[in-house]
């Protein structure tokens, strides 16, 4: 099983969710993070203008069986894309075991 973690623009979240829905990945967790990267945003606060690379982003964590890996990455790459600096990243890593608490199922069966 693989864990796919994606840091995306908050404004693309609707599209990403829709795209995952299309490929029947209806199980994931997400939360809001602050991202530091190439993108800069200009702000003004009480006359002090400052530019910051600390930008609000959404973090999505999806664990899929190996067979789902490619299409999920594909879907993310498509749906989170705008072409401007700051579209975000996708990271893939190995998951050794997974359990569904309700049924105590293990492995890929526990995912869907």
């Amino acid at each position, binding site marked *: 099983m693989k864990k796919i973690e994606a840091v995306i623009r*908050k*404004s693309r979240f*609707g599209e990403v969710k829709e795209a995952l829905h299309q490929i029947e990945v209806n199980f994931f967790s997400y939360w809001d993070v602050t991202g530091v990267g190439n993108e800069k*945003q*200009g*702000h*003004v*606060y009480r006359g002090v203008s400052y530019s910051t690379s600390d930008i609000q982003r959404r973090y999505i964590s999806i664990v899929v069986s190996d067979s789902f890996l490619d299409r999920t990455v594909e879907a993310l790459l498509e749906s989170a894309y705008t072409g401007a600096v700051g579209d975000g990243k996708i990271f893939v890593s190995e998951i050794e075991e997974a359990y569904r608490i309700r049924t105590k199922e293990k492995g890929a069966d526990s995912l869907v």
Partner: protein
Amino acid sequence: MKKIITKLSIVGLLLLAITGAYAQDTLVVEEVSTTIAATTVAAEQEVAALEPVVEEAVMGSDAVLDLMWIVIAGILVFFMQAGFTLVETGFTRSKNAGNIVMKNIMDLCIGSIGFWAIGYTIMYGDSIKSFIGSPSWFYNDATDMHNLFFQTVFAATAATIVSGAVAGRTKFTTYILFSLIMTVVIYPISGHWVWQGDGWLTSLGFIDFAGSTVVHSVGGWAALVGAILIGPRIGKYTDGKSNAILGHNLLLGSLGVFVLWLGWFGFNAGSELAISGASANNVAGIIITTNLAAAAGAVTALIVSWVKYGRPDISMTLNGALAGLVAITAGCAAVNPMGAFIIGIIAGIVVVLSIDFIDKKLKVDDPVGAISVHGVAGAIGTLLVGVFATDGGLLYGGGFAQLKVQAIGVFAIGAWAIVTSFIVFYVLKKTIGVRVSKEEEIDGLDMHEHKTNVYN
């Protein structure tokens, strides 16, 4: 380049305003000083004549009482701006909260300046053909400042109503321009018809004591026009289905309702424009009718939402209270407590159905329910005066006469508000545009229009 020109012209305008204002002012000074001289003489004479005429002095006390009541009521109405800000921000998303704050503060500021500068005389100046007052610049009658204040905060209210309905997608500059026109043109003219004394609706016998129609409906219909022309927020309707876009803080929303309810006591009971003599009991009566209608509206909306959706809905209950308040505004001085109670119940039912209808059938996106609360409940409340007025109402043997007049008033002013605000919004749409870009809307207006977030 363009930007610099814009900036320069803003600065220019500012300077112009100052100098212009000042020039105007020095002229006034001379007038004033002669007036003062005259007044002083008059005052001296008065003082001399005072002792024997005790009644005169008594009237003095009464006049002070009336002025004091108007000022206090005006202060309460002023505070409604905070209530509107809370309700509107609470019922919408946090990413637009700063923009709503700015719109509400500007409504108040522009209203205060605009109504003083010209709006007040358009509304209350000598009537020109029962249609509009004779305008004059920078109102400065030192014996009438309490009325100017009371009317100013009313005008600011009418503008603010629109703010909620178009929240989350409207350009800031566009909104500001609309608010200005609303305060100095649209509202004062229709207001003139009813409240100036010589207006054509007054002559017909139209009753709108504190402004269910004059203030709230006008705001509500303008909100309807604005919401339609600007279009729904992104994501509000998908595949013809209405989606829920959650308000970010219903607690602040409910605090706003308490503040509005508080202010409404000033709004309605202050509209008696007096408290001395016979007015005293009227004022107290208005307080009770206002309070009962609000309570009835809230309870009814709670019950209706409970029956309809299976749970007592928080935001509907809040809207129910507001609808009761709006509905009783026209008749608060004309109905008895029982009448107010029933008007509140009707408003509570109507507002839930109306919000549902506008959202799901008309597919007009009104995040805070301003159209239903102010427009629909305002119209219903005004009509119901024809039914429940203890003097002349249908149920009190008055026949349909009053009801007919009420209907004429509701429709005439409704038509006026819809047509004029359509023109304004349409022109703005075709020129500077009414809507922010898609990206700005998704990121939130605060980030793009004001480069700052409200919550950090």
